């Protein structure tokens, strides 16, 4: 999937675990894990808002787009 979720990076920056994050926002650990592993097919604005609030970041910090062609050339 060309949209990459950089949850790992942001968690490390905040020195926080996935379980701690799940405890702070109203999202289950299972769903956060789906998001982290790039298996999610869609993300709600409410989820994005909660993640940005807790991780002190902007939506653009959490998500990035990598074109399949540019990925292949790397």
């Amino acid at each position, binding site marked *: 999937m060309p949209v990459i979720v950089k949850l790992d990076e942001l968690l490390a920056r905040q020195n926080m675990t996935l379980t701690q994050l799940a405890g702070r926002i109203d*999202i289950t650990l299972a769903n*956060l894990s789906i*998001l982290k592993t790039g*298996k*999610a097919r*869609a993300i709600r604005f409410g*989820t994005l808002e909660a993640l940005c609030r807790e991780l002190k970041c902007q939506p653009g910090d959490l998500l990035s787009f990598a074109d399949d062609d540019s990925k292949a050339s790397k």
Partner: protein
Amino acid sequence: MYQEQSRAAGESFFSFPAVARRLRDPLLAGTYAATLVGMTGMVLLAVIGVGTSLLMWLIREKVSASMAGIKYIDPARMPFMISMNLLEVAVMAVVGFFFLGHLRKLIKSVADGDAFGQDNARRLTWMGWLTLAANVLAMNVGGFGTWFAVLTHPQNPEFAANPQSLAFNPSGWLLALVLFILARVFKQGASMNLDLEGTV
């Protein structure tokens, strides 16, 4: 979680207590129980239908003799006609058994938290076809019953007032239409549900 539990419990006919506990809705739990009772009743009705049909064929000469002299009735053909109609009642019971079976699974899917699935769309389509089949059979059985009742009891004012009362039931045809429409609604609901899967 619920799906796993239900699979562990299996699709058993006797899983009522577990399903009723998960449903937490008296209407659904009550209907689920009623479908189990109804399915048992349909099996009994099918057995009775086949049994009486055979019995009618065995005592056909006595039946023919008892009908001699009734206007518009051919005593030689009557045992066969009654026998066939009793068999049709048995077939209707089989149709009813499968209809209630689909309804039972439909309610169970609510307990499993998986109501808007393709399986339920298919079930509703089947229920629509079964309702159509039951209506056709009911018209035949009811028509024969009305004809027979009018001929054997010509003085009964109820038959004289409404001779089609047993043969045609418009609500049955409407039910089939509603079921086909609901099947399409569920089909769309299932695809919308699929879209939501994987949304965080």
